């Protein structure tokens, strides 16, 4: 049996994806990602990204975390949203419940005002999904534990074969 500190289940994944799709449609943004604050990518919707999305998620989390520390230094609890403006592409980051961050990429086909408005609505919806997910983790049954005790052994074998001088 393998259990992580947290897990995304099939139904929650699709609920998150639907919320992200709605957000993209209503805000005319190009991409939306959900990441956790340790830098793990949870979900991505929208245009196929032309860059390394794993690194991107890690840097977004670091960006958010650095700004969280800056907020604390100036006496704020946190900065719940961040905005990075580029000449063509821009990013809008917003905190969701339980250390999850929503990242929206958009270009000149929309405006910051519209993105901000739609993100606010999406954040409420995503907050509910994430909170429910964490409640479920408290009381989950065994149906999701699809790994048997050989799992770690199999991965260890994989590690041994990959990491060789």
């Amino acid at each position, binding site marked *: 049996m393998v259990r992580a500190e947290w897990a995304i289940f099939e139904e929650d994944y699709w609920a998150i994806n639907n919320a992200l799709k709605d957000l993209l449609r209503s805000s005319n943004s190009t991409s939306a990602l959900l990441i*956790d604050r*340790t830098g793990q990518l949870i979900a991505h919707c929208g245009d196929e990204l032309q860059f390394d999305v794993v*690194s991107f998620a890690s*840097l977004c989390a670091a960006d958010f975390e*650095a700004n969280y520390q800056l907020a604390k230094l100036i006496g704020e609890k946190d900065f719940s949203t961040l905005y990075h403006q580029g000449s063509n592409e821009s990013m809008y980051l917003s905190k969701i419940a339980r250390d999850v961050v929503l990242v929206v990429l958009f270009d000149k086909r929309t405006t910051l005002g519209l993105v901000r408005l739609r993100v606010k609505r999406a954040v409420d919806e995503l907050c509910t999904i994430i909170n429910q997910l964490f409640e479920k983790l*408290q009381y989950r049954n065994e149906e999701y534990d699809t790994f048997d005790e050989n799992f770690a052994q199999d991965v260890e074998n994989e*590690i041994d074969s*990959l990491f060789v*001088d």
Partner: protein
Amino acid sequence: MSLINYASREINCKLVYYGPGLGGKTTNIQYVYDKVAPETKGKLVTLATEMDRTLFFDFLPLELGTVKGFKTRFHLYTVPGQVYYNASRKLILRGVDGIVFVADSQETRFDANIEALYNLHENLTEHRLDLAKIPFVMQYNKRDLPDAVPVAELEEELNPERFPFYEAVAFQGTGVFDTLKAVAKQVLRNLQSSGAGAPTAGAPL
């Protein structure tokens, strides 16, 4: 914080290389990056100063392949070694699943090792984490240098809890994969034995 995504069938874990400045944390990750197969590794991200000192972190995602239908991925991070970047060090530890402490074996760096270890404890406490409950591996790097302190002495001062340790010469690759394998395996065993939402417990090798 390990994350299992049942929909995209992925398992992600976070490993952090910690230690004093110029101890070889980045060299460890760089060696791994140079040696693993291209399909295994992602982009190596380095946020460094002009002098090649780590400013924020180095980041390397490693994909182990598919086991029982799940892609298993390790995210390797280093922290900046210099004390005045402590804010960056602290935030990299958020959600850590396993730690490698890269100690510098040189006699002149003995105090720096102790200071960095103390700092690690302090920063973990701020995240409400306990080193005794996190997979942890000690690496004594720079064993090739003439003024390297004997391992027994380093063990006595830096590793009284007797966590697993490896001797290394990171720039040559000696001990780099042994260290990584040890911590990665501990993390997976931890994942297998821990309960959802519960604090994770370190499993001895």
